[in-house]
């Protein structure tokens, strides 16, 4: 039963699905467009809520897929289906025949410059949560120069009608609090503020992290959105916001502002997705066949989905979905 299963995407979902499919006796083949497996998580320093090193998790996942056939720096450029299954053409000119396809294409990061009022790409000391994570990994970023006052803006590109993203990006709240604690670890004397709409601490240990952020790290959580950012003569950032709990407008000068950018659907897969006949939801993410019982299947026979290609998801959610998609594929092959 060494049937080929084509997995498009080599991030957490793709790697975990491949691991499980291999254990089930199938032959997963990963096609990854970037130069390495690991996806976004490989760029991360530590994971919420327990500050666990991301590298430990990624290394374990990489070890599990070391025998899986993988095409790096490669994209699927064409795919057809007939009675024998799927026939894909890769950008490296190889061809793959597979009995099923798993779309594990993950997400893109919202481009912060689209929220022009926050001044990303205009004012030097406005950065994204991804860039801050790189600072935690490398200790290098010229924008972070012993800052005394740091702000975090939640929901950048999420729950925002103006950018046509009305959904919650799910992980940004917890990530912001994790990063707020981490920046306090690096700069204990700095004042740190987070500006949120609601703090959505939905997972195990998340609410504890929220309390820890305030009690142990003295991070100030302000309920209100930042409405504009500008720069003063010294290059410091001047922000305006509303503290909705006090019912007052607020103006503050900061050294660094971190934008918690939302997840958006990875659009680089659109052409292949269209060829496979998988539709999108109104939020732009891929549509599965049923939000309760068919979260890994699609309207197309033999095409499956896993991870953040269908909606923003945390790493545990993604791993869970990757394991369940493996079961779905196994059952499909043995139907």
């Amino acid at each position, binding site marked *: 039963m060494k049937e080929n299963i084509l997995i498009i995407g080599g991030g957490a979902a793709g790697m975990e699905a491949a691991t499980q499919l291999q254990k089930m006796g199938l032959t997963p083949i990963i096609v990854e467009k970037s130069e390495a497996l690991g996806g976004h998580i490989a760029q991360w320093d530590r994971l919420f809520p327990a500050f666990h090193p991301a590298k430990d998790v990624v290394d374990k996942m990489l070890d599990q897929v070391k025998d899986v056939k993988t095409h790096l720096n490669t994209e699927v450029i064409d795919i057809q289906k007939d009675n024998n299954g799927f026939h894909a053409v890769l950008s490296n000119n190889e061809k793959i025949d597979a009995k099923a396809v798993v779309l594990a294409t993950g997400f893109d990061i919202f481009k912060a*410059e689209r929220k*022009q*009022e926050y001044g*990303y*790409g*205009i*004012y*030097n000391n406005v950065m994204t949560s991804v860039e801050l994570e790189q600072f935690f990994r490398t200790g290098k970023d010229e924008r972070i120069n012993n800052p005394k006052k740091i702000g975090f803006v939640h929901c950048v590109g999420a729950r925002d009608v103006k950018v046509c993203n009305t959904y919650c990006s799910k992980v940004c709240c917890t990530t912001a609090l994790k990063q707020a604690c981490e920046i306090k670890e690096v700069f204990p004397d700095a004042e740190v503020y987070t500006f949120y709409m609601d703090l959505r601490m939905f997972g195990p240990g998340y609410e504890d992290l929220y309390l820890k952020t305030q009690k142990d790290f003295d991070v100030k959580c302000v309920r209100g959105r930042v409405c*504009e950012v*500008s*720069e*003063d*003569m010294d290059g410091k950032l*001047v922000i305006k916001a509303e503290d909705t709990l006090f019912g007052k407008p607020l103006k503050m000068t900061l050294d660094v502002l971190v934008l918690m950018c939302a997840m958006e659907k990875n659009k680089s897969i659109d052409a292949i997705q269209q060829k496979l006949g998988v539709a999108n939801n109104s939020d732009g993410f891929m549509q599965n066949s049923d939000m309760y019982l068919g979260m890994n299947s699609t309207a197309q026979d033999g095409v499956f989905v896993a991870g953040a290609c269908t909606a923003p998801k945390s790493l545990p959610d993604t791993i869970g979905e990757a394991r369940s998609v493996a079961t779905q594929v196994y059952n499909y092959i043995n139907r």
Partner: protein
Amino acid sequence: MIVEGKQKIWADYQKDIPDDHYFYVRSCIRQSFWPASEVTFLDIVRNKLGKDFYENAYHTTCGGIAYHSDSIPQETAMTIIARQFALMHESGYENYVCSCITSFGLYTETLETWHEFPELEAKIRQYLWDSCKKEFAKPKYLAHASDMIYKFRFDIAKQMKFPLVNVKTGKPLKVVEHIGCHYSKMFPSKGFGGAEYPHVLVGMVEAWGGEVIDYPERRQCCGFGFRQYFVQANRGYSESNTHKKFESMEPYEPDLIITNCPGCPYFLDRWQYVIAEQTGKTYGKNGYGIPALTYEEVAGLVMGYDPWDLGLQVHQVAIEPLLEKMGIHYDPKKKYQGVNGKDLGMPQCPMHIKSV
């Protein structure tokens, strides 16, 4: 500041404006506040640039002040606008350009609303017919007059006699650009440069040799804000808005403020006098204020118009220090002369803000 970031946004928010043949409508309050600005605009586009800009004596206010003050419903404002469009259509024009920022915002809002709700447009057609027996055609292109000067800014630069440069130091003048709220805050794609970093005035200043200041309260309203001023009890709020802006721009030592709204130059000009009377503080050098000019006035100055023909004597803040920085010669005796040299009389001097 990362200039490339702004340049990218400016490139994203460009408009393809027709080159010629416009139906021009004046602003009701600009004609009172800055009567020479509209005359200068028409002189520049018609006589200096050779363009066809037609105006019709029967046009009226757009109704924007009443609409934004909640005195009339939207349908009434739309019917007034429909009548303006009917005049344009009757005059044989398809491109519409207005002098007022609030009008531009309201025309844009009206056209967008009709696009989304055609049944409302049909209702307004009926209202216009019932009230005036007129039929209208929507403009093929709607522009604000500052869009036109922006479009022709390099042609104006070719005729420039006094660039925005300090003749004593050779350095560019430092210019605060202030955009009227109704230009692009409601519909970012309708303004050059969008809503957050509009390019319409920046482009003029840079084309004419000046240097633009980006200061923390750049986006803040001038203080007019309609009900902030029209409701007498709110006028302290209006003044505090303006005060906030001046406190924020003061460290940058601006030489002038350029605006594209009827109300902004008025409030940025007059509140400087009030603040000086109340606190003794002035924001220009040596006890003077910072001149707040319309874009037509700035265009006129760089093109060599006589400052008094531009109406600069009706500003509260003295213009002479700016004229001297730019090396513009002026006759002090003519400052308060009207048509045919009629003596209009010199106004009383304020206590704290210096005048010449």
